[in-house]
């Protein structure tokens, strides 16, 4: 095959490679081999995503017809600036999380389950990538289910250590299923009035539909479903327990990529499929999404301040950070959407890193930990803790870290849109977030009873340091990320 042919098939490969490797992993009896397959699958997907991003950067944008059936009948995979960007972020983080999983996952699950665990892992990666790549509204539902079911398995794997993982998984199963059902009901309404499922086709047909009420209802259902998946306040309730009780490696995978895919889908629905109905979209963003996002930001931050379980604390912080991304999309200008995409990338780096660090603590100390037990870890595990600190400082937006770039562009977009009150609220919440991070930092360097140093394993801290350095790199030289996010936003707004 020539390079051109490979590139032409990349959109399918990103999704297909992990999906196809998944059953192989399930049948592999040896844990190490299954892990190798997972590395192979996520690595290949990452490579494909890099190539795709390269192609998109040079101005290309292409679509792939599964089975050579052209749309609107067949299923189409679309690669343009937003999808290439999101899939690159997700596959990159998934790759790093997979590297980390080798030691971390086995520490928390039975060795006999490893093959099946990695099968679910690969399914989740492939399913989430599929969510982003697909250009078909119904096919999206299929990927939604694939990723949701595999995530439930992964979360429930935490049961070996804490039975509450089962409840967390069950909650996610039920709430996630409600979300997916809402989404598919919405798709049904839209299909009824347009007769199409292809997104590009829908975007053309929807403005011409005379029954606007049906379109509105369909839109409402689809959005409600996706809000659940993206864990936007107040339908975020599944997220804290799911992240807290899943095995550490799984927490870092899900925290880094799961909600990002849903946020991307939300942007796709709002700015692409329904872009032809600006009044409805404007109303939904201004009176629903922005208030919900702000609610999530404050609720998440405040709950995080009072939380003592470290993984739950980080999960609440995720609710707040997802709020920032949703808020940025809610601004709906090019600058706003770009800020949203920038934070999709940066938050994946930040939260992925933080969960990896917490995972490393849990593995090395051999148990779930809360804040009190973290006392003095800074002195006992300096390598891991320094990386944790870098990611934490990035979370609160210290300059020269990626988080600062996010904050910079978000505030700039809000000022440009003259949303002064929102600017005040965002900055106030950002100052509040220092409180919970500082709570952790103080504990880490507190004089503690136990001071025996812990041997830190490279298999755990190397992936973590990749992300920590990523936080620094994109804080000092953010231009590639910002450019890519800008291009993604311009695709949606037409460069306004």
């Amino acid at each position, binding site marked *: 095959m020539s390079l051109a042919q490979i590139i032409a098939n990349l959109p399918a490969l990103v999704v297909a490679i992990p999906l196809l490797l998944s059953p192989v992993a399930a049948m592999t009896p040896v844990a190490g081999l299954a892990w190798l397959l997972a590395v192979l699958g996520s690595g290949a997907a990452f490579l494909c995503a890099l190539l795709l991003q390269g192609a998109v950067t040079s101005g290309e944008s292409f679509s792939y017809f599964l089975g050579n059936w052209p749309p609107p009948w067949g299923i189409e995979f679309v690669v343009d600036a937003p999808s290439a960007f999101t899939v690159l972020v997700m596959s990159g983080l998934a790759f790093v999380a997979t590297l980390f999983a080798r030691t971390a996952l086995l520490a928390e699950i039975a060795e006999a389950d490893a093959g099946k665990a990695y099968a679910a892992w690969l399914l989740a990666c492939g399913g989430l990538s599929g969510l982003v790549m697909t250009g078909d509204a119904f096919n999206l539902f299929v990927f939604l289910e694939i990723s949701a079911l595999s995530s439930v398995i992964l979360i429930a794997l935490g049961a070996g250590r804490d039975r509450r993982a089962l409840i967390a998984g069950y909650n996610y199963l039920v709430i996630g299923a409600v979300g997916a059902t809402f989404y598919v009901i919405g798709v049904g309404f839209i299909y009824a009035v347009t007769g199409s499922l292809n997104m590009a086709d829908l975007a053309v047909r929807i403005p011409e539909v005379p029954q606007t009420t049906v379109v509105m209802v369909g839109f409402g259902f689809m959005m409600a479903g996706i809000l659940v998946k993206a864990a936007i306040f107040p339908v975020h309730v599944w997220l804290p327990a799911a992240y807290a009780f899943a095995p550490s490696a799984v927490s870092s995978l899900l925290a880094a990529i799961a909600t990002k895919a849903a946020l991307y889908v939300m942007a796709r629905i709002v700015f692409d499929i329904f872009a032809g109905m600006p009044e409805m979209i404007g109303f939904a963003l201004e009176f629903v999404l922005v208030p919900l996002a702000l609610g999530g930001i404050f609720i998440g931050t405040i709950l995080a301040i009072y939380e003592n379980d470290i993984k739950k604390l980080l999960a609440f912080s995720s609710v707040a950070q997802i709020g920032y991304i949703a808020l940025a999309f809610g601004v709906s200008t090019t600058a706003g959407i770009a800020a949203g995409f920038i934070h999709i990338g940066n938050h994946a780096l930040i939260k992925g890193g933080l969960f990896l660090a917490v995972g490393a603590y849990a593995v090395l100390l051999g148990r779930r930990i809360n804040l009190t037990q973290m006392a003095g870890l800074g002195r006992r595990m300096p390598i891991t803790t320094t990386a944790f600190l870098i990611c934490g400082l990035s979370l609160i937006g210290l*300059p020269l870290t990626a988080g600062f770039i996010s904050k*910079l562009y978000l*505030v700039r977009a809000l000022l*440009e849109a003259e949303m002064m009150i929102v600017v005040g609220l965002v900055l106030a919440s950002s100052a509040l977030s220092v409180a919970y991070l*500082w709570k952790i930092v103080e504990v880490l360097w507190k004089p503690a009873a136990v001071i025996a140093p812990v041997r830190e394993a490279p298999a755990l801290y190397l992936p973590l340091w990749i992300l920590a350095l990523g936080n620094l790199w994109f804080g000092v030289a*953010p*231009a590639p990320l910002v450019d890519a996010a800008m291009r993604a936003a311009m695709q949606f707004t037409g460069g306004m």
Partner: protein
Amino acid sequence: MLMQPQTALLVGIFAPLVTALLVPFLAVRSNWRDIAGPVGALVTFVAALEVTADVLAGGVPTWVAAELAPGLDLAFRVTPLGAIFGLVASGLWIVAAVYSVGYMRGNHEKHQTRFAAFYAVAVHAAMAIAWSGNLLVLFIFYEILTFSTFPLVTHKDSRAARDAGRLYMSILVGSSVILLLPAVIYVWLMTGRLDFVPGGILKDAIPAAAAPWLLAAFVFGVGKAAVMPLHRWLPAAMVAPTPVSALLHAVAVVKAGVFTMLMVVVYIFGIDFLAETRAATWLVWLTCFTILASSCVAITKDDLKARLAYSTISQLSYVVLGAAIATQVAATGAALHIVMHAAGKITLFFVAGAIYVQAHITRISELDGQGREMPWLFGAFFLGALSIIGIPPLGGSWSKFYLMAGAADAGLVMVLAVLSLSSLLNIYYLLDPVARGFFKPKVKEVKVNRHVLTVLPPVLTAALSVALFFFAGTFLELAEAMVTR
């Protein structure tokens, strides 16, 4: 000339950072570790001298590190005012580095390696602030300075230190995130640039009615300038070991605050724009209030370091006042005051710390009669105090003279009255410890353990305060270059 200006710029910024990174590796050999600080300081100072020489010759040393945003670089570009601040921070670091070795050893402090490392990181941030090429870079290192000084403030690991650290962080980080950052972004949005341009960039870019509000966002966003009511963090930070109070909370950190205000007024607003719009009138009165109010509080303090802290708050407002008056002469005075107050106040803190190390006295009421035990220290304190009061032949008299001339120039008779009254208050509360030391009978017998490394630095900086009176020309030239080019 030892190095090219651009090389010197890089050396000046990175020598402190390299020092900080070396310190942990030298931890096992404490002598080598403790030499690293002074050597790093010396290298930094030489670099700062080279950079200043180039600025005086009309050059603009520049280094662009990376692109932060389209049209906005992570760039360093030395302005005349930046040259002044760089020179002050690096020059006083040499003495402070020597002093901190004496203090930490004499006091048997724990975690000396961590202390030395973060001390150097803080100086790195201060140098980067001094030579920053635009407002965003300045903001970046402003934040890093806050974070790098936190481990120094909480060095004692005690409950009191942690509470003080929390107050320190919440005021400095809170104010900068909530007000300074949006102010910076607002300027960026309205003008499309953030670099420092003589004459300012805001004229014609923002409505005149918005100017006072934007200025307020800067004043209350730059918590390090400690204009009331944002001053509380500074007395709280006194819980840190005295070398921190001396170099950082009398020089690098607080001067970074007033330096930022001066940069914003001179290069972002432009003195003329500020004068035309009268946007800073309110600030003149607020700083006057801060000057007098904090002097009054200082009188009530019996703890020597707390008294010095309130004196610092008062003196910082002199600089902000000089910027707010918005005339060329006043701005020159403000820039000079950064230098003169730094030399004077670091002397006072050195003495306070040395007295603590040698006699374990922290209260002014216990200083009675101790002057005869420690004549060199009390002599140095006397000279430093005189300089801050502004009496010739000490450096402080120049900056007071220019500030008063600037106020007279702007027709602000009340400001003249405030400055005179403040000098009287200074005489009262700064000379009081000296007078007690020499003229009152002893109230407490103490055993004095002499540590030469804690005595030499204050004597040196006291001599520097005298020298600055006679050799103020270079700084004057730089300060005037700031407002004219």
